[in-house]
């Protein structure tokens, strides 16, 4: 079910009416019904896997709580010695770890099966292709990556004692299956979502306007930018031309950086807007990433929920393991305090970004892209003292606006080098990147770009330019700590409405510029 469809419109609007009227005292049940309806619209077979994840994780949480309670009760038993208490606690920790490991393994196996089995079955010359999901009539469950990560985060938080286990399976199922987050995230946290999902929400006109504003802005990004740039990018890159001029490759990658951001953040804005209509504030997933001043900063602004998840559930647990702590001590004693602190983090970063790469897909170029990001961040951390010394030696005014702009541009370039491997197969990415530096050929741009731009028709590029300017203005306002919605509300009514109609009709006009619409890049993850 696409977000821009009659079915979704009816689901949300009828759902809203029921939510604030018939189900006003048990709104979470209404949300659950809507979520399951939305989920099964993409195929009822996937429901089995969603229920499996919800059940195993929920039971895992309850069992963790039971183990904690048992351990606490046994340690309070009369006459128990200190050593016995320690042993009981250690045993409880071991059991909890085994339980978490078992539940996580089961769920990641399901995720891995859907994401990777077909790819590796093909590599093995179809030896296992009979067991591939498609051979068994199975379609990847909607949002399996996102709800699995979300559920895993809940279980690990239960293990850490961050919050008590949810006792009501149905309420927990709502947390996993809440429909706006299913398409492409964000990956929400139980502690922040659960109270909202079960609280009673009163309809609020101001909140509704904000939600619709956000939804419309997201739709503009998705349809008037992402959908209109995708055909030109494909026209340039998908021919896998080894002789493609560097200037054309660069043009395509720059457009891809725009398309990626518009598609993903546009979709996120739309689902955040939908959730807001129901009074639910999901976590933001983007914070003007192209204003980042370093690659590390970029990953704190791009796909924020995934980055935070990786930080909390992979980076820190890995970096704080005994072997990594021993490694840190060794590095301190052999390389100094700075390296002792940064080297373990660098290794952890490489691991995290390798996982991020693989999460995008099993193909080699995703791993390369992930490792590239990890390596750049690791090197930046390792060489930070050297860069500081260099800046001082060169008398660079690091507090100046010019330096700030330089860092933004530098980061943008670094990110775009990574996009070469995100968008293209590994060998093709290498060829395009090499030709960007060794065979730029500006005249090829003048000769070939007009043809590539014709992959879309009508006023497409006018729409892209206007929409991009609006997105830029929106980003600048947010970067300055201002609220774009509030700024728009300050405009005279007529001007406000002109802006709204402009955005609405840019979205509608976008459909005449392309032969067919494409789904979200991060759907089917």
């Amino acid at each position, binding site marked *: 079910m696409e977000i821009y*469809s009659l079915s979704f419109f009816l689901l949300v609007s009828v759902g809203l009416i029921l939510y604030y009227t018939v189900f006003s005292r048990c709104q979470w049940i209404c949300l659950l019904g809507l979520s399951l309806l939305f989920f099964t619209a993409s195929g009822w077979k996937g429901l089995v896997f969603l229920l499996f994840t919800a059940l195993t994780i929920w039971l895992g949480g309850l069992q963790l709580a039971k183990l904690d309670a048992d351990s606490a009760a046994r340690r309070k038993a009369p006459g128990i010695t200190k050593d016995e208490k320690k042993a009981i606690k250690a045993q409880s920790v071991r059991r909890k770890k085994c339980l978490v490991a078992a539940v996580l393994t089961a769920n990641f196996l399901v995720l891995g099966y859907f994401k990777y089995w077909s790819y590796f079955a093909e590599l093995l010359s179809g030896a296992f292709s009979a067991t591939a999901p498609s051979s068994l009539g199975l379609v990847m469950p909607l949002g399996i990556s996102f709800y699995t990560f979300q559920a895993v985060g809940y279980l690990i938080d239960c293990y850490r004692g961050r919050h008590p286990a949810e006792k009501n399976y149905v309420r927990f199922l709502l947390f996993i299956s809440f429909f706006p987050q299913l398409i492409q995230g964000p990956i929400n946290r139980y502690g922040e979502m659960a109270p909202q999902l079960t609280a009673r929400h009163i309809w609020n006109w101001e909140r509704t306007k904000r939600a619709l504003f956000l939804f419309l802005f997201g739709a503009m990004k998705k349809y008037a930018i992402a959908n209109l740039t995708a055909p030109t990018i494909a026209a340039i890159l998908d021919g896998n031309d080894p002789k493609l001029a560097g200037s054309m490759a660069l043009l395509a990658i720059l457009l891809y950086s725009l398309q990626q951001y518009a598609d993903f953040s546009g979709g996120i804005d739309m689902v955040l807007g939908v959730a807001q209509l129901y009074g639910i504030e999901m976590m933001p997933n983007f914070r003007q990433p192209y204003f980042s001043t370093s690659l590390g900063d970029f990953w704190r602004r791009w796909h924020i929920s995934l980055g935070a998840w990786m930080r909390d559930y992979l980076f820190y647990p890995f970096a704080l393991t005994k072997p990594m702590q021993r490694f840190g001590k060794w590095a301190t004693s052999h390389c100094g305090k700075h390296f002792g602190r940064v080297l373990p983090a660098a290794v952890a970063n490489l691991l995290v970004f390798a996982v991020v790469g693989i999460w995008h897909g099993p193909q080699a170029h995703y791993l390369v892209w992930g490792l590239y990001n990890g390596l750049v961040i690791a090197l930046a951390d390792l060489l930070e003292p050297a860069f500081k010394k260099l800046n001082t030696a060169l008398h660079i005014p690091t507090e100046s606006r010019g330096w700030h702009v330089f860092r933004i541009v530098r980061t943008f370039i670094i990110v775009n080098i990574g996009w070469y491997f995100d968008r293209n197969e590994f060998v093709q990415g290498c060829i395009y990147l090499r030709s960007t530096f060794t065979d730029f050929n500006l005249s090829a741009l003048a000769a070939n770009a007009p043809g590539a731009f014709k992959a879309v028709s009508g006023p497409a590029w006018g729409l892209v330019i206007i929409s991009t300017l609006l997105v830029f203005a929106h980003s600048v306002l947010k970067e300055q700590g201002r609220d774009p919605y509030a700024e728009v509300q300050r405009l005279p009514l007529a001007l406000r409405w002109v802006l709204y109609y402009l955005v609405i009709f840019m979205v509608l006009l976008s459909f*005449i510029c392309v032969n067919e619409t494409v789904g979200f890049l991060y759907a089917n993850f």
Partner: protein
Amino acid sequence: MKHIAKIAAFTAIFLIINLILCGFMPPDNGSSLDMWRSYHQKQSIDIAVIGSSLASCALPEEELAAATGETVALMATNAQSLDMSQIALETLLREHSPRYVILVMDLTNMTGKPYAKAQKAFLYAELQTDSWKDKPADLLRYMTSRDNFTGADSLNALFPWQSGSWPTDWPATIQQKWNAVLNRLPHRRGAAHAQPEDTAVINFDTVGAVNTWNQNAHDFSAQHIEELTSMLQLCQENGTRLLLISAPKTTLDVVSYETYFDDYAYFKQLAAEYGASYYDFNLAKPELFENKEPDYHKDFTHMNAAGGHAFSLSMAKFLAMLDAGQDVESLFETPSEYLAAVNYITNVYLTPEVHPDKILLLAGSYHGPSVQAEYEFWVKAPGESEYSRVSAYSTRSWTEYPAAEHGTYQFRVNARIVGSSADFERYYECSVDF
């Protein structure tokens, strides 16, 4: 109240802007609009012909109506895909009870990729020409159909101006729309199917390697098979007699299509599964239809006006025989009989390949399986006025020409059946820049 008034005003302005856009887009010149206008003018329909340009060329509406003496609706437009034909068929069976539905097969429709904008334009043309009382129901049916309900088309159906292209000449577009409005006034309404006379005749010595097989993908897509099956099912459920036919085309387009008779067998079997019949009029015996080449064809796959007239007469005779319950199967050859009769070369083609020091000439020809062709190559070098022979007749279909100087070379290949004494039976010429 203030909010409700604002919402109402906002919505009203939104609708007005949409109406204004409907006035400019799409341009009112689509063949879909003509087809649907003509369709909606008919009170009752006896025979419907559905398909692409193959249908409209082979069975022009006025010709078939005159030949049969019945009311005929031609629901065919250029490049009409199977799902558009499905829309046409569903509308037809909902509103009429035709005696026959003739679905003209186009192999491109079984293999090609759907063109979403053409489909939308087709549907909007139907909605545009619908009567006002039928528009809401038809619109709702489209928006909630299985294919559209969960996609963007379900909402975009509310914006008909999206179905066309962005006008490049605004004054001309506005003039066109105004003329169309005037033409829709009752006293101005004339024949909607004003088909231009088409007297072009194919020249087999210039057509080269252009044919359906070379221009399209070959595997039937699952989607198109489903669309065809749905149409067969619909007619079966409605008790409507469906004739699945292949219209006459040039022999070259039949023999060059490598899987033609496998596809023929497939269509025969599929039609039979749903109580329909498949007739390939390329296999029709002369007593049913004599496919005169090149006289009846304007290109390798389309009939011209003369062909359409002749085939319409033949179809009228065929339908009369069906009505009388006569055996019609005996009026068609088997594939092997057909191929045995193709004891000639339909055409020859030449594909030059430029190499640094020579030009490689690759020839080929289309003919029946019992024929063996031989080839003779000629060249007219730059500056020369006469052809000179490169290689004499042999069954080898290629030769090399060692080009000495840069310039434009003219090449010609002659083809004849081995053992023939003719100088040539077919030829093809082309030029190459070296």
